[in-house]
């Protein structure tokens, strides 16, 4: 048996990208970011940094205002559902501001986005799983899961939340 005979078609080896020369993928093949070589995505010219600083201060102002807004909303003592929605909405806006500008996610690398996207998905799964379990199980055994001695009065009102 020769070596040729046992070589599977899958790898007519060494052929990458239609017979292009197989030079190592050197650094020169990647688009380098000449204007921002040091900090992975930041323009380091003094004018740009001063502009950034102004932007950070504006974001700080926005966060301060939103903090006051969210405290003010809580004073109205809205019904739970509306209060939760509003408070989480404001918190999400604030969180987005921090992530986008302070953590400079507005101009981050694809690799970081990929990691975070994956994390956000699994975070969603983690939040959904136990919660869904509870609501689903309530339909089977109303009020079964927490208070054997005092079944939750609202347990059967919150119905299916998942499609």
């Amino acid at each position: 048996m020769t070596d040729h005979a046992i070589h599977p078609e899958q790898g007519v080896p060494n052929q990458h990208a239609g017979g292009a020369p197989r030079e190592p993928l050197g650094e020169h093949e990647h688009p380098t970011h000449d204007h921002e070589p040091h900090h992975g995505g930041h323009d380091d010219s003094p004018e740009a940094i001063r502009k950034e600083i102004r932007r950070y201060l504006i974001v700080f102002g926005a966060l301060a205002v939103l903090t006051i807004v969210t405290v003010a909303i809580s004073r109205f003592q809205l019904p739970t559902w509306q209060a939760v929605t509003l408070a989480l909405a404001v918190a999400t806006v604030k969180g987005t501001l921090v992530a986008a500008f302070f953590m400079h996610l507005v101009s981050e690398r694809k690799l970081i986005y990929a990691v975070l996207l994956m994390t956000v998905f699994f975070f969603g799964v983690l939040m959904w799983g136990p919660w869904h379990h509870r609501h689903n199980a309530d339909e089977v055994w109303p009020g079964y899961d927490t208070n054997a001695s005092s079944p939750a009065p609202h347990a059967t009102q919150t119905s299916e939340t998942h499609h």
Partner: protein
Amino acid sequence: MDAHAHAAHAHEIEIPYTVHARPDTGVYNGKLGIWLFLASEVMLFGALFSTLVLLRTSAPVWPHGWEILNIPLATLNTFVLIGSSVTVILAWANLRLGNLAKGKLFLGLTLLCGLGFMVIKTIEYTTKFSHHQYPSTNNFFATYFVLTGLHGLHVLGGMVVFAYLLLTANKWYAEKRDQFTNRVEVTGLYWHFVDLVWIFLFPVLYLL
């Protein structure tokens, strides 16, 4: 959080891309490292938030945070923490501008803000204890103490790193300016995340 703090320094061998970004990924090691760490932190706090949601939605009675907790103090703490997020990023910006003195000033301010946050937190805790409100009192207090306690530990961890950065700033800035600037950036990323967690903790625990 100090994935970065351990980035290869003082080694006989040189680890590539410790300081400068690798062209094809566009990031340096410490930055990817801290983001991965933050991803795991998202899952850690995710599990705790999941716990809170589950316990709260299944409880027959759940007190409103604003009935029991001290909102003015917590609002003040929110400002302190948001302020520290700004100072840490200003420290980084100034280091990039080549202004070590201002960079150190803002690092110091960040450390002070962290300290202020912890002091206010301690006042809150001691008031609760003096009213005989402990984690074991009920599940509201259990989640309150665990969530804010774990968050407080993160603040403390950040403060340790800031103190270390301040103490070593002159030496590092003179010898390896870029690397030191990166360290401040990476620690800053961690610090913003701690701030971000608080931004969600504050309404969820205090205002609802």
